[in-house]
């Protein structure tokens, strides 16, 4: 409810156009106030002073006065032409992108924004851009007319099917800003938006190089290893079996025999069950169950853990899978499989920062998946 007492009076000003735009805007505001005051004061004063019954001098009333008429024809006209010129000059500037502008491509469709950077990195409903560098968006719609609108940058342009439209700006302030669809486009029009992230050029370069993540993405095995160490699996499950717990090296797809005489193959289903509900099966040779992780690990954590446990079987050490996994991850990223194609309700898809990143930069991410490849969706 805090925001109910927050009355912002101006949008953030974060692009090269904002200053000039706001100058025209506030000039118009001043003219509006001026004319409202003139008309308002005239109307209020005259209607009170000349109210019927008020005995004031009404001799020689005026009905026509050419000089007066020309005055209030030409003063507004001249002021209007000045403001027209200010507005038109800004508009021409907005329509003339610099030659060295960085190109980014945008596809609008009901009801999402799909953004593609020249090196193949793609994002949905977010736009990452560097500050201090002109950026030119080339945009097209796959279905109806949309409008790409960033209030903080004071830029907006229709995104039309069947033709490219362009928009350019230079962001000046780092930060996260609203991205809206300005042109009504059907049912979920209000949710066709997201966030524009204006970043320091260095951060942007990192982001781009990492395939659209703040940090290098982890493979499932890497993530699993991290969880394995974080929640303390390694306290008991060591490289060799101990009296407290069996080693998990190579456990995948082996037969497990339990204290009640039954047995199961250690497949994904069994591994998940043993992590979340370990009391269901006590392996022969052990007295008691390990602590249950039901409710403590998310399903995706469990999937990562299982992936790691499976990898443990293919090599001799726990750290072995790391390098292999990284290469796989790069390929996944570049083809954009991880980019969510569904529109999560207005929420910007958060890239959870890795608390312990591996500083491996991938320099040569292949540009896979041009806009056209998505086209037949």
């Amino acid at each position, binding site marked *: 409810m805090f*925001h109910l*007492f927050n009355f912002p009076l*101006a*949008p953030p000003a974060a692009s090269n156009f904002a200053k000039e*735009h706001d100058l*025209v*805007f506030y000039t*118009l505001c001043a*003219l509006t106030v001026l*004319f*409202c005051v003139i*008309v*308002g004061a*005239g*109307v209020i004063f*005259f*209607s009170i002073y*000349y109210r*019927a*019954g008020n005995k004031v001098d*009404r*001799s020689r*009333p005026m*009905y*026509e*006065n050419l000089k*007066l*008429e020309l005055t209030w*024809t030409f003063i*507004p*006209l001249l002021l*209007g032409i000045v403001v027209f010129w*200010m*507005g*038109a*000059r*800004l*508009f*021409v500037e907005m329509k003339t992108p610099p030659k060295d502008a960085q190109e980014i491509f945008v596809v609008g469709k009901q009801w999402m924004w799909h953004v593609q950077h020249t090196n193949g990195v793609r994002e949905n409903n977010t736009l990452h851009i560097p500050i201090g560098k002109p950026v030119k968006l080339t945009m097209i719609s796959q279905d*109806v*007319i949309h409008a790409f609108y960033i209030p903080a940058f*004071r*830029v*907006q*342009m*229709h995104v*039309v*099917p*069947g033709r490219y439209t362009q928009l350019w700006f230079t962001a000046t302030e780092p930060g996260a800003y*609203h991205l809206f669809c300005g042109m009504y*486009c*059907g*049912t*979920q*029009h*209000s*949710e066709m*938006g997201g966030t524009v992230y204006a970043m320091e050029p260095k951060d942007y370069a990192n982001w781009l190089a990492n395939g659209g993540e703040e940090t290098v993405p982890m493979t499932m095995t890497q993530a699993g290893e991290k969880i394995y160490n974080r929640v303390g699996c390694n306290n008991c499950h060591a490289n060799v079996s101990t009296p407290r717990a069996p080693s998990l090296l190579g456990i995948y797809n082996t037969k497990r025999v339990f204290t009640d005489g039954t047995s199961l193959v250690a497949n994904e289903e069994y591994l998940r069950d043993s992590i979340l509900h370990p009391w269901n099966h006590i392996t022969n040779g052990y007295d008691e169950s390990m602590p249950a992780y039901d409710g403590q690990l998310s399903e995706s954590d469990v999937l990562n853990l299982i992936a790691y446990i499976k990898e443990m079987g293919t090599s001799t050490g726990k750290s072995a899978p790391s390098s292999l996994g990284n290469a796989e991850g790069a390929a996944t990223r570049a083809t954009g499989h991880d980019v969510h194609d569904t529109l999560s309700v*207005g*929420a910007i898809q958060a890239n959870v920062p890795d608390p312990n990143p591996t500083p491996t930069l991938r320099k040569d991410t292949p540009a896979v998946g041009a806009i056209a490849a998505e086209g037949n969706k």
Partner: protein
Amino acid sequence: MSATATTTGQIHEEPGGGKETNYLNVTHTIKSWLLTQDHKRIAILYMVSTAFFFLLGGIAAGLIRYELTSPAGVMLESETYNKVFSAHGILMIFTFLVPAIPAIFGNFVLPLMIGARDVAFPKLNLMSWYLYMTGGSLILWGILAGGVDTGWTFYVPLSSMYSNGQVTITLVGIFIAGFSSITTGINFVVTVHKMRAPGMTWFRLPLFIWAMYATSVIMILGTPVVAVTLLCVIFERAFHLPIFSPELGGDPVLFQHMFWFYSHPAVYIMILPGFGVISELIANFSRKRIFGYHFVAFSSLAIAGLGFLVWGHHMFVSSQSMYEGIVFSLISFLVAVPSAIKIFNWTATLYKGHIRFQAPMLYALSFMGLFTLGGLTGLFLASMGTDVHLTNTYFIVAHFHYVMVGGQMTAYMGALHYWWPKMTGRMYHEGMAKFAALILFIGFNLTFFPQFIVGWLGMPRRYHYYYFAPEYQPYHIMSSLGASVLALGFGLPAFYLIASLINGPKASANPWGAHGLEWNIASPPPTENFLEIPIVTDEVYDFDPTSEFEQEAGTHRIMHGDAPGLQTKDGDKKPMEDK
């Protein structure tokens, strides 16, 4: 004053006493109403039917405002919300704002003002009401059968290829209703040209007639274009005729050019009649000839003419050429000038008037304030640089509501209160009417001023949700609170006006002491309007302020005969200055 001389006697008679026949009580059958060719009865038919559509549009507006109090909506699905705001726009524009003042007050008082017994083509006039009702019914049918979710602008290819709503039936409804505009326009133009009473020269026409004339010209020239455009959408939708959709090989921006070629002038169809009403009210309640009559009259024609050359200012960011935009922007600044001329002339009219704050005048004064702000904020949108940021936001919504509701709707209320005694023969409760005018002014500003700010902050229009930008909520809550006050401002008049029909005091022929031929005949007027066609010898708004200097408020010069005293304050004999 020969015209008034013949009818002066009626002023002191109570029309009801002798059971005089008038256009209302001459016959009582339903058939006599539905087949009437009397312009006054047709005006009443229009009044009742437009009020019904206004009520529906108002309910839709209430739903929108309720829904927007919370950033994540209150009770509607997005699809329903979209249908509600589309219904609000379509009903308010095509079934209320466009026909309201011309078809009700234009129909009723235009022949009376020029001293005619009816409009030029009475049967065409009746047909226009049936066309309107057919169109309105089809639009209503479309809403009841599922509604449309395209907005009132029907942008392609959303409307032609993607929307699942009842687009076709609604478009057919608007198409048919458009012909009612055209027939009304033709009727008015011919009536003004051919049926003015002897002595009613062009520059003795009340300014309401000039405004109606300019409006009619736009209706005749503009409406066919939107009719053709909507027909093209229907053909593309129904038969996949390739016109607008790029999938079929068409051009979606072409639609916008064709649509706004009508729909921008249509804005003037909606506001020019309001200008006409305000000219009448300001002159008659200041008891003074309008200042700069010729400038006010010709500014209406200038608006009608220039209005056809500015449609591209709706399309600065639509991918039309930059140079095209620059021309449209310049002409848009030019069209602001005639509106400014009107406002300044009205203000100057008040100077040295005898201003009476009766209910219609309160509406006229609030029009002055609201329209001034509405018009000036239009410049933000005519200026290309600022339009880029403000277009498609709540700033636009606030701007056109200031013009359409603050302007036209306030003028409508003024006209309703001004001509109500003439139309019904009854007086309403003056105190309630003044109170309602005040409530309307406060409620209106509370509703729409916050929308300027929230639009400037960047909130796009037609958004159902804004949970991703909760900083907009306080303004929406203010706006919704204001809408409740506004609803009261529209509800109160419905109450006391209907009450006046039941037990309101009988109205005299000229309860306001106004000047004009319509006030020289009984209230309500007889079917044939004028027993004998008047001969006009006096100038328009020919009040003599000097003669009234010593009078009490509320009296009228007619009571003092045709030779009013010309005493000035200084006791000089001063000849009346006529231009």
